[in-house]
């Protein structure tokens, strides 16, 4: 197992369209069986990266290995190892859900019986059995996305690319999708995910890389990234300066606003952290007038890393 190459290795990946530099020297490694999230705003180069790794377009420079193969020189070897779910659902609208899956099975040369079995399996797994005989064009956004993901899995891929799998979905469908992605991970598949939601990366990924203007500006676990973000804190407001002074002694060197009598205690905003914070306040008998939890979002990550806010914030969220 350890002798096999990582699922994806990229170094110095570059791509431009005309004068526009889209990817400016990307380096990343995705070990097998892990979930890697590429986080960034619209236009950062996420989709371009997926398109290059999945053999859809060529790179201008850099070394790439997907399942041990170079997408440019051995595209079919790469294609045989991957499943792709795009940002825009790649389903055949004029076919039923079942026919779509059997089409995929036929293209993977699974044989009639195995193809039907696999299709029925995936329909059940993605809760589409009741709609198996309906045309894909009649599906809701969440159903299409699930069918799309199911289609990418027919060939039993070792590496799955999910390009913004939940963009545009309502919160419930998004949670369903996350559930299904987690089930995939449990099955040992390597997942390369792109998203503009820190929360999504946080929920699903082992490692997260932040892409901005074609460059990776940060990489780490969700926890590591959040620590980069000063936005993650608990804000404590006090009514009088005596209490405020006591609190400053307790919490030491944290960001503060002496005029407003506010302390910003860095925190991930989780229940355990809050409990600890409250315990400390209780132990010192410090009275707090107001407590607000500020959890970091992608805006904060961007602000912290690039020094400028994300240009385009999805309002659909």
């Amino acid at each position, binding site marked *: 197992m350890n002798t096999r190459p990582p699922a994806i290795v990229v170094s110095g990946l570059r791509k431009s369209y005309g004068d526009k530099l889209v990817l400016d020297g990307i380096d990343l490694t995705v070990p097998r069986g892990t979930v890697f999230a590429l986080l960034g705003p619209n236009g950062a180069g996420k989709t371009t990266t997926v398109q290059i790794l999945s*053999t859809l377009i*060529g790179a201008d420079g850099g070394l790439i290995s997907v399942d041990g193969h170079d997408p440019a020189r051995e595209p*079919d070897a790469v*294609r045989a190892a991957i499943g792709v779910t*795009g940002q825009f659902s*790649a389903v055949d609208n*004029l*076919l039923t859900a079942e026919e779509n899956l059997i089409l995929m099975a036929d293209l993977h*040369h699974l044989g009639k019986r195995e193809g039907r079995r696999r299709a029925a399996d995936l329909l059940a797994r993605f809760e589409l059995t009741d709609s198996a005989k309906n045309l894909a064009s009649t599906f809701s956004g969440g159903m299409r996305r699930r069918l799309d993901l199911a289609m990418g899995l027919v060939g039993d891929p070792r590496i799955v690319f999910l390009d913004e799998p939940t963009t545009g979905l309502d919160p419930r469908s998004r949670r369903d999708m996350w559930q299904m992605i987690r089930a995939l991970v449990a099955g040992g598949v390597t997942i390369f995910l792109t998203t503009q939601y820190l929360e999504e990366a946080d929920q699903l990924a082992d490692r997260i890389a932040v892409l901005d203007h074609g460059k990776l500006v940060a990489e780490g676990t969700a926890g590591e990234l959040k620590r980069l973000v000063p936005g993650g804190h608990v804000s404590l407001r006090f009514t009088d300066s005596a209490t405020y002074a006591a609190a400053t002694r307790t919490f030491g060197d944290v960001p503060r606003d002496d005029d407003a009598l506010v302390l910003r205690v860095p925190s991930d905003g989780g229940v355990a952290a809050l409990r600890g914070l409250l315990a400390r306040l209780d132990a010192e008998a410090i009275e707090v007038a107001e407590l607000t939890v500020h959890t970091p979002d992608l805006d904060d990550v961007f602000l912290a890393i690039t020094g400028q806010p994300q240009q385009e914030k999805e309002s659909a969220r």
Partner: protein
Amino acid sequence: MTTHALADSATMLRRQLRHMKRYPSLTFMLAGMPVVFLLLFAYVFGGALGAGIGGPTGGRADYIDYLVPGVILMTVAAAAQGTAISVAMDMTEGIVNRFRTMAISRASVLTGHVLGSLVQTLISMVIVLGVALLIGFRPTATPVEWLAVIGVLVLLTFALIWLSVALGMVSESVETASNLPMPLMLLPFLGSGFVPTDSMPAGLRWFAEYQPFTPVIETLRGLLLGTPIGGSAYLAIAWCVVIALAGYLWAKRLYNRTS
């Protein structure tokens, strides 16, 4: 994985046939237009045009015989438009990108379209011919000549379909794709499809005589009705081969174009 080229093309053909079965209205619509033109020209213009073509003894019945080969070409052109639309629809939706990320024969997507359209066109030609026979089309072709007719039509259809696959791909939208092949529909008019070319003014006549549809129409007319064919047959075959090859190479280049 070219080893699976046949199996993959068959899968893609099944996909196209399923589309067709799901929306038979498209096939009937594609056949409907040439049928309308056939009836229009036979019954509205047929009396007057027939008198011009067949002389006083000719009339409507003779004109129907004259008319049918041109209308059949119109049928092929209409079907080509359908091909361009369905290719453009495929390209604008994500499904083709999915195919491109799969280890399948790359040509199979296009081959499926071409074979599917070929079947669709043959169906609408049968419909148009059926209507023509009903309203008095009386071909004199022998079984061998019928085989030759089928051969010429398949070749022409094949050529125009490859051309429209490329047109469908070069279109940015489905609307463009439905407009680009329009000139093909006009070609039978600007040739010997509806009236003899020697009745046209000089410039137009020159175009009508040298455009690709005219030798095809003359060949079909000769095979079906026994008029002289001359060199038209070779010219027709040459045009078809050239159009098919150009369309194929163009389509293939567009499909393989990365970025």
